[in-house]
């Protein structure tokens, strides 16, 4: 016969194994919560655990599953997640018409003597070998998508600007009522929010890793004002996973978090979900929203157009990065891309380190071009 505490700790362990961040401190809190409730009442135990172990709506279905399984007496089949997909791998997707010199920049004679990094800069990330990929990943981690700044409603002290009565009076007080100096204040500036939506569907497989690493660099540099999501068939918020300092750790966390690797694309629906759940409530308001996708839409392109229009109304700027854009002869004629383009402020490539640098620059500097 196990004690109640053992049972609860065992339950908490199960919940943790299912992917809920129920750390020991939270387990302690659950035990203390049960001091005030009836430990023999299933409903009380359920709520004590849910209120203390969970901290996100995504935790709740996992918690419910564990609760049902654990207390029904069944041995809990550990709710194993599928093994993480290894993202860093040479692209298996054959790329048609490889243009090793077809990108304009190569015409420059100086490129011949350029460093290895310089050559790598313009290579399509889908066609790198393992060593080159590691090198490019290292360079991507150095990119700084430091967002542009916007004027805040708040004031800070300044050398000139508007008169600051409070500070002046405080100064006057310090000098016993003598007016010695007039103080000024000016509007503070704050970083503009950046939201990245990275397409991880099948057709984007060769680029997803590089783009997610780009998102990692952006989230690391942008502090708490930068958010990242993956889109494919499901919208997944990745900001938390991308906060790991080390890019490879972050990528492992990301690969575990994304449930729909290399699946289909339902961009319109997911954009709608993004707008409904996050965008409209404030995340996209006044933000720079970057969509990295090839625009290959399986669903109804008109829905995508509708949602892009909505996103454009919410956001400060909408940037679309399409890895195929740099390909000679590429025309944005696929249904999704054609529907989205009228609502995009900047349409850029996203296939190489140089393209990602440019993307970072566009995010940083507003409309000014690289």
């Amino acid at each position, binding site marked *: 016969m196990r004690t109640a505490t053992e049972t609860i700790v065992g339950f908490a362990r199960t919940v943790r194994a299912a992917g809920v961040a129920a750390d020991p401190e939270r387990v302690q809190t659950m035990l203390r919560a049960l001091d005030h409730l009836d430990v023999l009442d299933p409903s009380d135990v359920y709520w004590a655990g849910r209120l203390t172990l969970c901290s996100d709506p995504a935790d709740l279905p996992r918690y419910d599953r564990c609760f049902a399984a654990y207390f029904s007496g069944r041995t809990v089949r550990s709710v194993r997640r599928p093994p993480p997909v290894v993202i860093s791998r040479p692209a298996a997707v054959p790329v048609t018409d490889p243009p090793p010199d077809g990108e304009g920049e190569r015409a420059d004679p100086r490129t011949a003597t350029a460093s290895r990094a310089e050559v790598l800069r313009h290579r399509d990330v889908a066609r790198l070998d393992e060593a080159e990929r590691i090198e490019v990943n290292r360079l991507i981690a150095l990119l700084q998508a430091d967002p542009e700044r916007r004027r805040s409603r708040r004031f800070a002290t300044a050398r000139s600007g508007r008169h600051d009565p409070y500070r002046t009076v405080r100064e006057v007080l310090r000098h016993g009522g003598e007016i010695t100096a007039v103080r000024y204040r000016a509007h503070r500036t704050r970083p503009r929010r950046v939201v990245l939506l990275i397409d991880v569907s099948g057709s984007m497989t060769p680029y997803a890793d590089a783009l997610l690493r780009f998102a990692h660099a952006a989230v690391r540099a942008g502090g708490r004002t930068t958010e990242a999501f993956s889109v494919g068939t499901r919208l997944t918020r990745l900001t938390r996973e991308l906060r790991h300092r080390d890019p490879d750790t972050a990528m492992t966390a990301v690969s575990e978090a994304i449930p729909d690797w290399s699946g289909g694309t339902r961009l319109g629906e997911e954009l709608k979900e993004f707008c409904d759940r*996050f965008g409209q409530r404030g995340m996209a308001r006044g933000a720079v929203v970057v969509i990295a996708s090839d625009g290959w839409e399986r669903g109804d392109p008109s829905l995508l157009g509708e949602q892009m229009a909505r996103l454009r109304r919410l956001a400060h700027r909408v940037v679309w990065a399409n890895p195929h854009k740099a390909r000679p002869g590429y025309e944005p004629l696929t249904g999704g891309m054609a529907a989205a383009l009228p609502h995009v402020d900047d349409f850029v490539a996203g296939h190489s380190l140089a393209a990602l640098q440019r993307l970072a620059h566009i995010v940083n500097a507003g409309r000014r071009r690289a």
Partner: protein
Amino acid sequence: MTYDATGIGSPPELARILEECGYLADDGLATAAFLALRMRRPLFLEGEAGVGKTALAAALARALDAPLIRLQCYEGLDAAQALYDWDFPRQLLHLRAAEAAGVTDVGRLESELYDRRFLVARPLLRALETAPSVLLIDEVDRADDEFEAFLLEVLSDFTITIPELGTVRAVEPPLVVLTSNRTREVHDALKRRCLYHWLEHPSYEREVAIIRRRLPHVADRLAGQVARAAQRLRAEDLVKPPGVAESLDWAEALVALGARDLDPGTAAVTLGAVLKYREDQQRVTAGGLDALLGGG
């Protein structure tokens, strides 16, 4: 008075008291609030807009017969707006008056200037000084993360240090309710300090009961019709599904128009009370109001 002295012994009992105050809490919410009282932990509420997060804080304040102190969060909120500020104009006035009266004791004058009466208490300080009290920190996701870190400090030891005056410690920590709309991920450290509850839209029966409770002049049948239509609207694919607040508005609007029934005619003229987006109104109207209201 401590919370224990209120003698609330179990979640159902708290639910009953909340009901007397006009708030219908289900088991989960009653347990959450009960534990928040007993364990003296802040209650972190998340959920769709309009499910009654803010209303719970107000109801708890009424239930405990304690004042509700509200801190509305917004971007750029800082300590001066959340904690305290000095009343400079009054300080200056005091100084001038002392000067006119010929006070020469500089030391005394200075200490007088930083007297408690020149301190403007903002919500957090007010909540610490008022016992008992319910502190509502509304839409914490709107504040910056620096503010969150600061909040974490205040909520862990319920003391505030004012350099000129000393440390203010809460005799009895306030009952804290934090709400978030999830526009931004809130620090895990802050959530860990709290009990976490995700509020769902109420069930049909509960929604009818809420309408009846809050608007006693609305007939049973009309309340039922409004609740059913609201439930159906939530199942639709809308930009902004209606919350309980919208159901209440809708019922109120219908009563104001003298409508006895929610039928396609009355629904068409009052749709603006429940759907706040043109796209949503168009979608619902296109789908046919009969379909929305039919079958019951």
